[in-house]
């Protein structure tokens, strides 16, 4: 089978499904999408119907039902499956199942062994430590016992006091969590048990696993990422630079991402920022090669104010923010890089066709996550209908969304079952100052209106994003 004969099942929804469909079309591949009752009006459904007709769409009961997805794959004649992010993206059992069943499918993501190896935060930490890669101080196994958890937390607390940290803080995380879910800080060690119980109960409810991780909460840090891409045969491994994801909501969820991770040309740092970027990139590549990584992946780091990097975790999937790295990347001098298309192409067995020396970077990219939420009330999601959504088209701007533009003429009701992201706006500038100016211009021209069932106007984070634009990359 040649690559062009493949048909990709898009096992996801919303904005990422839209981008996967577009990448498939760009590569000349057929596709089939799924949707649930809540997503009837979603842009990914409209796009799939428009580009592929009714035979490119199947209604399922849940994006979480593997049997259903595979039944759709069979009936639609799919030969590959793209999990997007969330849902099955980091489920090694699912990846193993699709690649071993009678009607085998290509899993467009890392092989199941790699997901199993790196998908587990604790395993990743162990592997990193074995390679001399610095990791955040804390437990290296999930803790299920309250007494043990408190002992680890007290040790970490005392360790911070010995280090001269004035206000030590402990982080309690659901071991099976991700995406900012199930994380809470402990400022007073005597209150540890109540926080521990809350996270344990939350983890049991949401992830069916009560295990928690106890870590030192490093203050005043930047959250950086390294974007990796590797060929299926693990021979070619390249990186697409770094991102800075430090602007987050109070729930530690990303709201603005910037590429590159630091910009020493525009911002003065206390440390050698270029060296830190080089170090984390080198460590990430070394780990990728060690585990024979074979798809796209993201190495997540925290960098302290003193410039000390610590590996947090590895996301064995495409990230929401892949587009901002693509915005500043050039392959053999050419812009228009599409990391999702690269992921699909290489997963189907094509070689990269370029080396690290062919990848260059130009300018600064900023990605804004447009979300209906109330930043003044702990970023509580806002639920209602969107009556107007549009933006001014610019050649330096890409907007990815599943919300139909106002021109579609129909209001869009935000489903409450999923992540509340509405759109991603990615701007590019020749330098940080221009990117910031363009970012503000994009937000100023954005039209986003709606109302909830009580008639109250839509709440969004647009003003928050505008305020934060001034602080981008400042450390």
């Amino acid at each position, binding site marked *: 089978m040649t690559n062009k004969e493949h048909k990709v099942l898009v096992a996801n929804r919303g904005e990422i499904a839209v981008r996967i469909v577009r990448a498939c079309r760009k590569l000349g591949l057929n596709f089939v999408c799924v949707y*649930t*009752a809540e997503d009837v009006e979603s842009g990914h459904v409209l796009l799939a119907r428009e580009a592929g007709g009714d035979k490119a769409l*199947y*209604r*399922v*009961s*849940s994006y979480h*039902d*593997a*049997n*259903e997805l*595979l*039944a*759709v794959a069979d*009936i639609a004649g799919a030969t590959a499956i793209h999990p997007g992010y969330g849902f099955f993206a980091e489920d090694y059992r699912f990846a193993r199942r699709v690649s071993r069943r009678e009607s085998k499918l290509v899993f467009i993501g890392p092989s199941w062994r790699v997901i199993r190896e790196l998908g587990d935060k604790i395993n990743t930490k162990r592997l990193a430590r074995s390679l001399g890669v610095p990791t955040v101080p804390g437990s290296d196994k999930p803790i299920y016992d309250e007494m043990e958890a408190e002992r680890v937390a007290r040790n970490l607390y005392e360790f911070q006091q010995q280090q001269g940290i004035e206000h030590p803080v402990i982080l309690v995380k659901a071991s099976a969590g991700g*995406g*900012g*879910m199930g994380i809470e800080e402990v400022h007073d060690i005597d209150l540890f048990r109540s926080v521990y*119980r809350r996270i344990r*109960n*939350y983890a049991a*409810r*949401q992830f069916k696993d009560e295990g928690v991780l106890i870590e030192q909460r490093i203050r005043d840090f930047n959250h950086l990422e390294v974007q990796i891409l590797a060929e299926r045969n693990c021979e070619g491994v390249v990186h697409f630079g770094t991102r800075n994801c430090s602007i987050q909501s109070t*729930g530690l*969820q990303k709201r603005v991402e910037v590429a590159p991770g630091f910009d020493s040309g525009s911002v003065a740092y206390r440390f050698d920022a270029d060296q830190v970027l080089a170090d984390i990139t080198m460590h990430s590549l070394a780990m990728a090669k060690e585990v024979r990584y074979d798809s796209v992946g993201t190495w997540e780091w925290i960098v302290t104010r003193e410039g000390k990097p610590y590996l947090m975790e590895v996301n064995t999937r495409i990230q929401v923010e892949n587009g901002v790295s693509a915005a500043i990347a050039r392959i053999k001098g050419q812009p228009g890089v599409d990391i999702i298309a690269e992921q699909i192409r290489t997963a189907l067995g094509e070689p990269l066709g370029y080396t690290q020396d062919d990848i260059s970077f130009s300018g600064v990219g900023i990605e804004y996550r447009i979300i209906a939420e109330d930043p003044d009330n702990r*970023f*509580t*999601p806002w*639920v209602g209908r969107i009556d107007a959504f549009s933006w001014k088209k610019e050649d330096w701007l890409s907007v990815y969304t599943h919300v139909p533009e106002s021109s579609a003429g129909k209001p869009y009701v935000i489903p*409450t*079952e*999923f*992540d*509340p992201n509405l759109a991603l706006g990615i701007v590019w500038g020749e330098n940080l100052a221009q990117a910031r100016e363009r970012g503000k211009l994009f937000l100023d021209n954005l039209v986003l209106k709606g109302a909830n*069932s009580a008639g109250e106007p839509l709440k969004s984070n647009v003003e928050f994003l505008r305020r934060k634009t001034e602080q981008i990359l400042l450390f």
Partner: protein
Amino acid sequence: MLDISAVLEEIKASPYTELSVRAPHCGLLTFPGDLKPGDPLSGPVGEWKEKPGTLLATLERERNERPISCEEKGELAALNRELDGCFVEAGTEIARYRHFLSREEVLQLILKRALHLFIAPERAKYYFVPAVDIKFKVSGPKAVTVHDGDELFIMSRMKREASLRYSGPEGVIYAVYFIYNQNVDAGAPLIGVCPPDLVPQVEEAVLRVQTEWTERN
């Protein structure tokens, strides 16, 4: 004050509901050969409802056959025979049947009108707070008394959880209307609370339904 006689008469005038059976997920659908409209249907029976009701269809996906059985007793109104042997999508209507209300269902209908209903403020998943949840598991719902301002629920949606306090008269939780891990629409009742002054009326409703409602076979 609820007029129980009037409500009972209203229910007696229309003693059944018409229910739609939809494909719970996508898959290959097959019907049993002998089923036809007008056939009587049985619901699940046994002490723990372990014996399923009349088989309406079979839905197969990934070599897993899922029998779709009747959830209540009743009479088959329509069967979408044209779907036999076809791959159907989730939510496709397979059949419709008429279900005659049981004593318990009639009682629940009346209680829903008599009890103080605490309503879901938003579409979300609801859970009892752990302390209440444990009481429920150990002693059952009627063992829990709630007071105005009690922290009673955890409301979960879109990766966020928030606590929800009960507001209303003090009383015993008499009925729970939400299902664990399933979304509840805004405005739907979460629990029915029976304040002490309502107990005689609830007892009367129970007695009247027990004596006046005849179950159909």
